[in-house]
């Protein structure tokens, strides 16, 4: 019976577990884990180098070019330097949580990459398996869960540092991440609605042809919302107020040095790579491409090409845009992205039933938009009225 339960638990989409679990299967899983870890680390190292080089190209200068050919080993050199730095523990810091927080940021970043499908099916030692570390039925919900735990890492880091600026930074960071997670979840809900399944492998397989890509099937708006919400979730420019040197010294990671800081830094870039990979999976069909002789239709090569586009996009955003102010940021998240994604979700749900329902919801929503805008502006005005009323009262006293 226990074997039956184990088999039922493991009978997820991955064909590796269909015939039960034996030593070969365990060995393959361990090998895939190590390989995924290595791929992620290499991707992160590459991303850090890529960002520095591309930003410097956009600024008329050469980036790092001394450590290794074209500066490729610069990230490694920085990591080694951070290893050798003194590991400080501030006096008023909460010891245990101060030590825990970087791991709360870094471990979810590692975990989230597990559900990303890198390629199609591959045969190892007679067993077929997906080129994906894990394909649980909850699939994309796992990503949302790990993003939520990452918020803990940020929040606790600032609080446990025992000083003002990290606390401010972490409060802002956690508020920002939480508010954009709602928009993120709603655009993921749109994708799941069309696909009918949460599993990432199913999402990728339902985007077989070029016209089936979710970016087109969903009308483009969930894609845009997901991109903006993901950028804010990652604390990447233009939403990087929380770690802006000009404003908060270092935000929540001011008091961290050495390996702990390296973990935060790595976690940020790992999240960037993972989020780009998720965008490619959800909206661009993941490893599915055009059928070409050597590469084939479903291949990691297509995945990497698409990933490059988004990694370049993030770096381009960093080089170009100034930072959002905190209130502008929160306004964007709550007053624009969440209503827009909710509205679009309703339209899509209507379209699923029947085209007439879809258009009815669409035009109905557009008709209701002025009502919403009026409500928002009344809220604005009444806030001003309230402030001026209290000011007048104070003057009278």
């Amino acid at each position, binding site marked *: 019976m226990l074997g039956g339960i184990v088999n039922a638990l493991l009978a997820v989409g991955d064909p590796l577990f269909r015939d039960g679990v034996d030593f070969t299967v365990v060995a393959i899983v361990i090998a895939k884990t190590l390989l995924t870890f290595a791929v992620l680390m290499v991707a992160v190292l590459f991303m850090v180098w890529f960002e520095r080089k591309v930003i*410097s190209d956009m600024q008329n200068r050469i980036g790092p070019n001394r450590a290794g050919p074209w500066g490729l080993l610069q990230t490694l050199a920085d990591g080694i330097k951070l290893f050798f730095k003194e590991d400080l523990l501030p006096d008023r810091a909460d010891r245990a949580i101060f030590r825990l927080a970087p791991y709360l940021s870094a471990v979810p970043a590692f975990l989230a990459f597990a559900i990303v499908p890198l390629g199609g099916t591959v045969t190892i030692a007679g067993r077929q398996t997906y080129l994906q570390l894990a394909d649980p039925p909850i699939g994309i919900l796992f990503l949302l869960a790990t993003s939520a735990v990452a918020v803990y890492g940020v929040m606790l880091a600032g609080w446990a540092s025992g000083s003002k600026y990290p606390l401010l930074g972490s409060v802002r960071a956690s508020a920002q991440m939480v508010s954009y997670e709602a928009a993120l979840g709603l655009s993921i809900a749109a994708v799941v609605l069309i696909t009918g399944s949460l599993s990432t492998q199913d999402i990728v397989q339902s985007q077989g042809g070029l016209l089936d890509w979710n970016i087109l099937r969903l009308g483009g708006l969930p894609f845009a919302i997901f991109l903006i919400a993901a950028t804010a979730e990652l604390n990447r420019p233009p939403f990087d107020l929380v770690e802006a040197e000009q404003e908060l010294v270092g935000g929540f990671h001011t008091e961290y040095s050495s390996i702990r800081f390296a973990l935060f830094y790595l976690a940020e870039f790992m999240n960037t790579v993972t989020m780009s990979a998720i965008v490619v999976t959800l909206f661009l069909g993941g490893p599915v491409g055009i059928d070409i002789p050597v590469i084939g239709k479903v291949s990691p090569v297509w995945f990497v090409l698409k990933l490059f586009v988004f990694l370049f996009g993030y770096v381009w955003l960093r080089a*170009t*845009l100034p930072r959002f102010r905190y209130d502008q940021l929160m306004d964007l998240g709550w007053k624009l992205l969440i209503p827009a994604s909710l509205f679009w979700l309703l339209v899509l749900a209507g379209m699923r039933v029947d085209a007439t329902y879809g258009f009815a919801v669409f035009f109905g929503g557009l008709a209701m938009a002025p009502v919403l805008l009026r409500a928002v502006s009344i809220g604005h005005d009444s806030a001003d009225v309230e402030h001026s009323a209290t000011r007048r009262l104070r003057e009278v006293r």
Partner: protein
Amino acid sequence: MGYFGGFRVTLKTMLEDRVTVQYPEDKRPKPERFHGRHVLNRYEDGMEKCIGCELCAGVCPARCIYVRGADNPPEAPVSPGERFGFVYEINYLRCIHCDLCVEACPTEAITETKLFEFSFTNRRDAIYTKDELLVDDDGKPRDLPWEDWHPGDDEHTSAWMRATSPSGSAEYEGQVQWSGELGYGVRSSEDGQNPAQPHPSEGDHVDTADAEQPEAHH
């Protein structure tokens, strides 16, 4: 520009040339009158120009020059004239490179090169003595072990910087009024100055500037 104009700018910049110079292999060329390390010059026959008058030490606002003059030994004169700079030291930890000493020197003995990369590691090395400041037998500045000269850098030194100022008198602008240097000879006047003008001292005219040729003092 709109919301997306900025993206085009950054993308276009990727295609432009980089302005970074691969220092220290390549160095940016410095302007001609760049204030660097000083040298003590010599005339074309090898005699030192410094006459030990201590005017440079007197004018130096940072008081970094130490000069002592001594009489020229009659059988082996060091400089043309009665005295020469016997002790000459500049403390580069104090020097502010204002080059007032270069302006004050009556014989164009002290001028400056374009070296600014002194990397001496102790105070003793920071005090440059006369041996270190004097140009060598080719008229080039000496390459000391802690300095960073690349081949060709000493070609860009200019000992005529001070000498190309017209001594305040507009009539002498464009006239070559400086003596020849060891290794470089008499340098031509600057671009834009007309060397073909007749010398103002031809005809009866009180000349207040030093326009004599160096050979006259032999």
